[in-house]
Structures are given as structure tokens and as C-alpha cells.
């Protein structure tokens, strides 16, 4: 059924950007893990509803975001569990 629903809505695939960027610029993983410890972020994460991050367009932005998404996906695939909310060393290692 899910395949029928997906065919009906025909959404674009965000992983296309992710894969292309990752192949073109390997190694652009994220840094600045400290930010997820800031009050602004933790407040938003706890209660929402909207967080706008703005700045000069930087192509590496999406690459880094997507590199981290891939990193997290590999964690899921390996069956390891990771903590939510707490920016542990495990998080950092998984992203570098």
C-alpha cells in the first residue's frame, strides 16, 4: 500500500541531493556539536515550534547536513542505539 501511496504523490527524493553532494565532496562532516547544548536549541527541541537558521548561502552547508544524515543512517543499520537529547561523545564520533 505504501508503494501505491508513494506513486500517487510522486515526491522528489531528497537523498538524490545527499548522494550527489557526498560523492562530490567526501569528508565534509559536521562540527560544532556544542551548539546542540545551547539553550536556544534545547528549548526549540523541547517545545518547538520553529527554529530558523540563517546565513550566507554556503554549498558545504547541505553537504555537511547530508554527511551527518548518512552517518546516522549507518548507525541505524548497524543496530547500535544512540541517545537522544544528550550530545554525547558517541554523537560526535559518529559524525566525524
Amino acid at each position: 500500500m505504501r508503494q501505491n501511496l508513494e506513486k500517487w504523490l510522486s515526491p522528489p527524493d531528497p537523498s538524490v541531493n545527499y548522494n550527489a553532494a557526498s560523492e562530490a565532496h567526501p569528508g565534509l562532516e559536521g562540527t560544532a556539536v556544542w551548539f546542540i547544548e545551547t539553550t536556544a536549541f534545547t528549548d526549540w527541541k523541547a517545545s518547538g515550534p520553529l527554529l530558523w537558521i540563517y546565513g550566507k548561502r554556503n554549498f558545504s552547508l547541505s553537504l555537511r547536513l547530508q554527511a551527518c544524515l548518512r552517518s546516522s543512517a549507518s548507525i541505524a543499520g548497524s543496530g547500535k542505539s544512540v541517545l537522544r537529547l544528550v550530545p554525547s561523545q558517541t554523537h560526535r564520533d559518529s559524525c566525524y
Partner: protein
Amino acid sequence: MTRVINRSAAQRSSIIQDIENGSNAGSAFIAYLFFDNKDASKQDTRALLPSLIVQLVHQSDSFCDILVGYHTTHQSGSRQPSDHTLLQCLVDMILVPGQLPIYLIIDALDECPNTTGMPSPRDKVLAVVEKLAELNHPNLHLYFTSRPEIDIRTSIEP
């Protein structure tokens, strides 16, 4: 409450990773779209809403059931839903009681064009973001990035 923060790209990546970790641990739902001014299929609400909805459908039977309902009322998929219907579908998913947090991540909103159409594709996307934020639902967490262009700033800032 809207929070506006000017942060570097690197910091944004950490945010996504933190949220993703929550999703992988089965403690959150996450859906995302990166707008792309080089890809005409990723520049408007017709990209955003179906993409977010389908990603959520793959994560929850409750979300799937909701979309099945809309599919049924659209003659088993022989008719396409309007943007309004898609937004209502997404809202229905957000309002499912007793569920895990939902994180919606929208990157590079400024890559939606604002030079054609009344309203422009960017106007429509901003309207969706505003409506979702106005729900002020404790389960919904919206995150988006963009250049600080004036129309986006005007729309989002209090």
C-alpha cells in the same frame, strides 16, 4: 515562539545529526527536504508537502492510515490532491494524539523562486511554514535554513 539564530553551516549539521539520532533510536519521526534551485522538482510546495508526507508514512502505520484515507477520497488515487489537501493531511498526522515528536527539516528555503507567480513558489512555502508553526503543537518541531532574504525575514520574524 519563533527562534531565529544565525549560525554556521557546521552548527546546522550537528543539529540534524542530533535529531537523526533521536529518530534512529525510535524516539522521534523525522522528514526533510532540501530545496534546490538547480532541480525544478524541488522548488515549491508540490515538492515539500508530498516529500514530507511520504517520509512520515514510511515511519508510522497511523500516518499511513491517514494518507490512505485521502487516497480513498481521491478516487483511489486517480485524482491529485490540492496543496490545501496535502497540508491538511500533514496537519492530521501532526495532530495524532500520543505519538512521538515530529521533526520537519527544510533546507535552503531561499532556493524556492520568488520572481514568478502571485503568490510565488516561495510565498506558498512560507505560508505552509507559517501555518504549521501556528499550530504551536508540542509534538511538532520545525527547522529550516535560508539566506536572510527580506521576504523570508518578514514572514518568519515576529
